[in-house]
């Protein structure tokens, strides 16, 4: 599989005022290349939740979007720490370590990672104190 379109975006720690802008741009890119609306919505939801996670939990990081020659879409979220101490707990619906500031934005309900996993076709996460990498893949299909 070869990459036919690549975009990357920087996420700053605690940059609440810009939270969601990257997901908006990812959605616009994929809309322009004709991704099916329901697939696009799944991608937008996953991207937005993951972007919010980077803003509220990480020390900053990057978002990479790759469109592959078979039409699939891959999103990678890489941050520079501090890592997720217990991944199993983080994937449990309702479990949250979010700050009050994040909760004031309407997040921190402990549904982020479970939501992302549910709407993605491929989900892989690794985490250490040096950083977390979340890799998501989506198959564009007529849902």
């Amino acid at each position, binding site marked *: 599989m070869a990459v036919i379109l690549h975009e990357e975006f920087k996420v700053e720690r605690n940059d609440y005022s810009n939270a969601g802008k990257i997901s908006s741009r990812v959605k616009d890119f994929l809309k322009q290349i004709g991704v099916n609306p329901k697939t696009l919505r799944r991608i937008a939801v996953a*991207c937005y939740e993951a972007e919010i996670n980077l803003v509220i939990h990480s020390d900053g990081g990057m978002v990479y979007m790759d469109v592959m020659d078979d039409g699939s879409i891959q999103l990678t979220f890489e941050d520079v720490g501090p890592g997720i101490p217990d991944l199993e707990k983080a994937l449990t619906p309702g479990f949250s370590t979010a700050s009050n500031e994040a909760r004031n934005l*309407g997040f921190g309900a402990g549904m982020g990672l479970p*939501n992302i996993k549910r709407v993605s076709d491929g989900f892989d996460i690794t985490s250490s104190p040096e950083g977390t990498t979340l890799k998501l893949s989506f198959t564009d299909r007529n849902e």
Partner: protein
Amino acid sequence: MLAKDIVQAIQAEPLSIWNNNLLNKDYSMAFASDLMSDALAMIQNYPESTILITGLCNSQVLRTAEMLDIEMIIFVRGKKLPEESLEIAAEMGFNIFTTEYTMYETCGILFGKGLGGIRGSHTS
């Protein structure tokens, strides 16, 4: 339920109108929450005919609606978006209203008039 009938039923005031024609649009469902993750989890099917009712009043509500392709947002308890968020709203393409009713009252009135919930729509 027609958007204009929804607005009338809860005596809502417009905050930002992107498309007046949508006031004649028929919406079949509503979802109410202050948690945007809940909205992102639950509103998966038919977002174009679902309205979002919330007491959370910030730009993340607009981002959530944008990701889900929701057109109509109602803020409860008379809450109003700050001016800069309203400018973003106009660019994104939403019809936004505010009502003095509480979340409970707003939902009760609209449910009583036949505007249903989205129960089960996320599992299909």
